């Protein structure tokens, strides 16, 4: 009898629950959003641009040749809040927007200047949004970036995502995910950097042909954007944060100062040691670097000890310059994008409550001391530059 009961009751319950598949949604009822752009309209409303995947377009292009149909569709909608705007988009889309596979957030500079934490709240609160999404700030309207096309990838959002992923190659633009921003927002002292993104059009070519480019770095004080860093300054920041993984350092070729040579960064590492001397903070930034001679212009023979020493020195000055330019600009803007505060906290937990109280002031007064330890290892396949020489022994042009 008891066995019957245990069988009957679940069955009844299941039958009663039959209509209740609340969260069930078929794939073909979802508008899979790949990128979200957030702007603010002149009337203060939020404008959201969604890049929505068209599965049918992707399907047809696998069997046939990729025809003119685009595989994404961009919807723009307005609302009082971000969530409102997103739900308003469903007035235009026949499927409900689905954000779990969103890879990119693009925010406009205009919006960022007034603070972005309000706009990012939804993305960090709702379960559908993931925190590994890449964040960008653009000088244009975010909608333009979302609407732009890309040659290599079918889905432009994936192109942007991959752009973010290959930033390590040059280390001139940071790679920032939502979680990084949230960590900084949560802390009392840290400020953030966000890569910039832009559309470039080449005038002499087809005007329709446009291309996305990561360009500059937006500096956020708390969550408000205060300005842009150029590539060099950005790398200065990345050196301090230890985020430089690869890239090229241009130096004047020893022996032929008018030409440049490129040193490829193979490995880089840094740490920051704070020191409190008479109430003044001195940050010692140690950068260690392993590099190769990647390219040489100027055809002088560099593979010899003296030249290597000189190159290493030049790298030192180069990096020092990059870092100090970044630090001085950051100190001007009062933004602790280098995460100096946690370092100080760790080293001086007793003094920290005092320092924390007016950290901005302290930050402005920080003196930095940069120690670069660059080491050059290999020179590639060449021992000497292979250059055609004319009879006078001069380098051919």
């Amino acid at each position, binding site marked *: 009898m*008891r066995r019957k*009961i*245990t069988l009957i*009751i*679940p069955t009844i*319950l299941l039958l*009663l*629950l039959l209509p*209740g598949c*609340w*969260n069930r949604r078929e794939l073909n009822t979802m508008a899979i959003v790949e990128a979200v752009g957030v702007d603010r309209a002149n009337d203060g409303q939020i404008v959201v641009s969604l890049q929505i995947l068209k599965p049918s377009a992707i399907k047809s292009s696998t069997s046939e040749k990729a025809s003119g149909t685009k595989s994404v569709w961009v919807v723009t909608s307005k609302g009082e809040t971000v969530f409102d705007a997103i739900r308003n988009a469903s007035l235009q889309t026949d499927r409900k927007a689905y954000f779990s596979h969103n890879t990119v957030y693009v925010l406009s500079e205009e919006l960022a200047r007034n603070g972005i934490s309000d706009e990012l709240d939804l993305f960090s609160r709702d*379960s559908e949004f*993931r*925190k*590994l999404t890449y964040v960008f700030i653009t000088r244009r309207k975010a909608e333009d970036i979302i609407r732009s096309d890309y040659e290599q990838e079918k889905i432009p959002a994936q192109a942007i995502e991959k752009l973010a992923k290959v930033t390590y190659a040059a280390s001139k633009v940071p790679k920032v995910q939502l*979680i990084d921003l*949230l*960590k900084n927002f*949560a*802390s*009392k002292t840290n400020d953030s950097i966000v890569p910039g993104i832009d559309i470039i059009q080449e005038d002499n070519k087809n005007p329709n042909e446009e291309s996305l480019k990561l360009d500059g770095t937006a500096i956020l004080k708390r969550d408000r954007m205060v300005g842009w860093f150029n590539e060099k300054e950005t790398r200065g920041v990345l050196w301090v944060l230890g985020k430089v993984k690869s890239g090229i350092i241009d130096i004047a070729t020893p022996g032929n100062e008018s030409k440049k040579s490129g040193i490829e960064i193979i490995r880089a590492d840094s740490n920051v040691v704070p020191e409190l001397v008479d109430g003044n903070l001195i940050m010692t930034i140690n950068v260690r670097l392993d590099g190769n001679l990647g390219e040489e212009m100027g055809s002088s023979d560099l593979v010899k000890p003296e030249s290597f020493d000189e190159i290493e020195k030049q790298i030192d000055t180069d990096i020092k310059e990059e870092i100090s330019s970044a630090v001085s600009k950051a100190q001007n803007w009062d933004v602790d994008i280098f995460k100096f505060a*946690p370092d100080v*906290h*760790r080293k001086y*937990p007793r003094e920290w409550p005092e320092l924390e109280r007016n950290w901005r002031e302290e930050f402005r007064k920080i003196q930095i001391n940069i120690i670069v330890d660059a080491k050059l290892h290999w020179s590639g396949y060449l021992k000497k530059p292979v250059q055609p020489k004319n009879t006078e022994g001069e380098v051919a042009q």
Partner: protein
Amino acid sequence: MLENAKITPKQLIFLVAISRLVVSITFFPVFTGPPGNQDVWISEIFSLPASLLLTVPFYLLWKRFPDQSLFEYAETLLGKAGKAVSLLYVLYFCHGLSLFLYEWSAFLTTAVMPETPVLFILLFLFPFCAYAVLKGIEVISRFAEFLAPIVFGGILVIFLLLAKDMDFNVFMPFMEKNIISIGMGGFAIALKTSEIVVLAMLLPHLKSEKEKAKLVLISSYSLIALLWLITTVTVLATLGLDLAKMLQFPYFSAVRLVNIGDFIERIESIHLSIWILSGYLKAILYLYVILIGLSHLVGIKDYRPLVISTLTILLPICLSVQSNISDLNDFLSYPISVWINIIFIIVIPYLLLAIAFFRKQGEKNI
């Protein structure tokens, strides 16, 4: 009234460890109590001696009455008043279970199935609970043994997968606040452990392996502390203290960050399965304790006829035990739940122990 079932020491350890672990890895109440900074992990280690200290009265009582559960020796000691104590404990566990089921649905409706009503989630769960409880404590504890590798392995795998994103600098400065607040934190954590009472209920089932009881206590609390340590390190090192304090489900949020080579990603199903399976275990364990308490109260031998009718009462209680997530967070936060638990983990057992001591009851067993 106690079912004549036998539990091995290993199963008892896993039962207690898993059912204690499950809530804390999802809601992470540890951040709300003292010391409230990066030293919480030290508090978690301190919770081991604290829990052991809190178990002392239960252990000594069990020594006096090795074949009786808490319900039974309460009556042996207090007579009719013992029934009142039993009733209090039944209500305590009813509250514990319904609170847990409220948390269970809170997590599921927030993170996994936002549109699904809580009623559905619980209705779906209850037949499975009834089935498991009808099978008895032996099967429940075997289930714990079955789950142990899944849960512990899952936590370890998550730790390893997140290792590359971890920043261990967040644990510095070490011992920033004084040791007292850290110790307080340890006690606060231990006081939230209602499983201490569950252990007192299940110790008589150890039967032939009584001499291992001490070992069971120590190893179950150390296992809990160790797993807490792993999960806390995971959360703090990946999210940082500041963000972790602001998140509703810090561990789940950390798990969602796993991304290794764009290939191993979106593995929150591991956390989800740990939550569902071990939450199920906790639910059936508490339900079992409630049922033996109830059957003891009215003096019937077998609790099985009561299973389904008890569940019908539990359903509305679960739905109305807390009104929303802010109430829940308030309740779980440091002072409230700790103060309620003090009555049941410290006051009553010490009273019982004192009575047993003065009346010299059960001394022949010592």
